[in-house]
């Protein structure tokens, strides 16, 4: 009896090995197939479908924004597939867009292995959130010539064409954002004492250097203290206490961790220190951060943005807003009103990819990259006045213009002066 079982197991094992080998051969052969004059299609694209890959945090502390990055783009192409049967490409063929999303838990190693898993079955990688995670497979994507485009990181390396030929960032760089704050403050003309609390990595450094660029010619601004924190810290109470002792009237809080941003706002209130706040775009959500942090207590909370906020009450009153929220529910199974901007951002990524696909005349990754780099002055859905998409500028991400906004107790208003 036992011998029969073992034998059976042996046969199954042999059969599996054979099946795998055959499958491998079939895939290898399929990729080369092309018909005569036209270029062979890249992986992940057929005459009727195109597949996009995403690796992003769907679990762990960054899962909130991460799930949003998948939801927005899924909603965009879900609606498009349903209404028009897909996107009409530059070669005249209409292709349904499919999305394969994997969870990396904000872990660089996992992101790399997700990429390895996806690279042969997707046409391009897109929309994924995170600097360390996107960096983890950037070099592999270059070596494999796989597009890694419209990724959600403010790290400028992704928009430098020499260093990153197969990459393109989506959101403004950390410097773009920091500089906008600096310029606004410098233009106020009044004297301000500023303190800075920043994350001890590229993220924080980028914001701080951008901010300093913005104020470099301004004699009315003095930075009186700069402190850092680690992304793994459970508390920044000590930092806020030390910063409060300077009695500065402005704090630039270059922070990317949601609970810490809330805690920082609360701690300052406990110490009865009420400066004006500058917060980066990804940690300034009215419902997720400012309300629990009781930000109305401060004279002003400023952030930068290029897109409308889905969590502001006015958003749901517009036709486009209602449609967006309905699409999110129907195609992406995302029931709540998103508290993070990333849902709208990745919806915009969908719209930009749509533009690029319309200009893609051959089903190759090469041709797609050229098409993607040729978009200028495109106003994607939900972009704020004064901002637009421009992919033609080397060294800049798809969106590099931001406007400064001030919290009004519910959502944000665009402002052009401080105070």
């Amino acid at each position, binding site marked *: 009896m036992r011998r029969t079982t073992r034998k059976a197991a042996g046969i199954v094992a042999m059969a599996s090995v054979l099946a795998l080998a055959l499958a491998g051969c079939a895939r290898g052969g399929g990729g080369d197939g092309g018909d005569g004059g036209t270029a062979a299609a890249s992986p992940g694209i057929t005459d009727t479908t195109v597949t996009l890959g995403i690796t992003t945090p769907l679990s*762990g502390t960054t899962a909130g924004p991460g799930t949003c990055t998948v939801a927005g783009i899924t909603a965009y192409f879900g609606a498009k597939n349903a209404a028009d049967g897909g996107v009409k490409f530059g070669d005249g063929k209409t292709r349904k867009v499919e999305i394969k999303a994997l969870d990396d838990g904000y872990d660089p190693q996992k992101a790399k292995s997700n990429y390895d898993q996806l690279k042969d079955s997707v046409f391009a990688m897109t929309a994924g959130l995170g600097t360390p995670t996107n960096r983890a497979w950037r070099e592999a994507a270059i070596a494999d010539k796989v597009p890694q485009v419209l990724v959600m990181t403010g790290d400028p390396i992704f928009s430098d064409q020499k260093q990153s030929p197969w990459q393109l960032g989506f959101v403004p760089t950390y410097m773009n954002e920091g500089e906008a704050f600096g310029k606004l403050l410098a233009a106020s003309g009044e004297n301000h004492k500023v303190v800075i609390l920043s994350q001890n990595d590229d993220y924080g450094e980028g914001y701080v250097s951008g901010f300093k660029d913005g104020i470099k010619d301004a004699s009315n601004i003095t930075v009186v203290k700069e402190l850092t924190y*680690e992304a793994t810290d459970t508390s920044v109470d000590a930092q806020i206490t030390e910063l409060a002792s300077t009695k500065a009237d402005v704090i630039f809080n270059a922070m990317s961790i949601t*609970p810490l941003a809330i805690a920082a706002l609360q701690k300052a209130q406990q110490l009865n220190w009420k400066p004006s706040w500058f917060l980066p775009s990804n940690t300034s959500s009215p419902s997720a951060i400012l309300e629990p942090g009781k930000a109305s207590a401060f004279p002003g909370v400023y952030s930068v943005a290029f897109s409308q906020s889905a969590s502001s009450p006015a958003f749901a009153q517009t036709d486009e807003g209602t449609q967006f929220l309905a699409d999110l529910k129907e195609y992406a199974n995302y029931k709540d009103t998103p508290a993070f901007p990333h849902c709208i951002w990745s919806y915009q990524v969908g719209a930009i990819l749509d533009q690029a696909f319309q200009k893609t005349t051959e089903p190759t990754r090469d041709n797609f990259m050229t098409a993607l780099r040729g978009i200028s002055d495109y106003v994607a859905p939900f972009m704020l006045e004064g901002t637009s998409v421009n992919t033609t500028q080397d060294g800049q991400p798809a969106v590099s213009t931001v406007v400064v906004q001030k919290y009004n107790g519910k959502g944000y208003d665009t402002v052009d002066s401080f105070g």
Partner: protein
Amino acid sequence: MGTFIQLVVDGLSTGSIYAALALAIVLVNQATGLINFAQGGMAVLSAYIAWWLTGLGVPLILGILLSVAVSFFLGAIIERYLMRRFERGDPDTAVVVTIGLLTLITGLCGWLWTYNNQQFASLFSLNTIQFGGASISVRSLGTIVVMVVMMILLQALFIGTKLGLALRAVAVNPQSAAFSGLPVGRLLMVGWGLAAVLGAVAGALVAPQLSLTPGMMDTALVYALAAVILGGMTSPIGVVVAAWLIGVLENLAAVYVPFIGYDLKVAVPFILIFVVLIVRPQGLFGRRTVVRV
């Protein structure tokens, strides 16, 4: 001076969070001889239950009390139907099972309530009291007081009650305990249940501060383990004092020791552990295990 007092009180308050988890770890360890890595996950689950109840309209304090009660049963059930299979075997296997349990609970919370940050109302207000130039929040004081009460209760349980004595007996030698008529299985269930209760209290204290997510306790667990090693596995008072020490020293070192600063402050508890383990391997307050030959 104001800043100094502020840093000390803030450190005590953060330390109290580590302490609550550390106490739960000590309790399981005293009852079963195991280190339960799932303790943080169990605390998060309890916090989610309280949060879910308040969402249904249950008042906060009642929600927390109910979650504490539910947690007791959950802890007992986990012991009875999962851990018991591994308790008498290789301790390494049991530890791996608790790590698996942690992953499972975190995933379950994420699946049930998403990974988004949820706002958990605080039992204590954010109002502050002025003391020696420092602003001390009612929340910090509340957290510290709750911790002191729990520490005293636990110490009393172990030292002054029959239940505590029985729990310790079971941990030290389950076989002899069984021979002397102690209901070993039931005691183990009570041990796990009580630890889950401590975790639930920790969860309710931390959630308002860190905002509720499935991974909320991950970092706190590391510090809690540090406090357990530093304070000594056998002493509830020891681990609480150690947790406070970690919280306070971290804060003070960041501000007053220039070469440490905020970048290296995370290393402070671990340097402390090395030093203590070299000088006193049983921890600051722990008892040395003596084996008679």
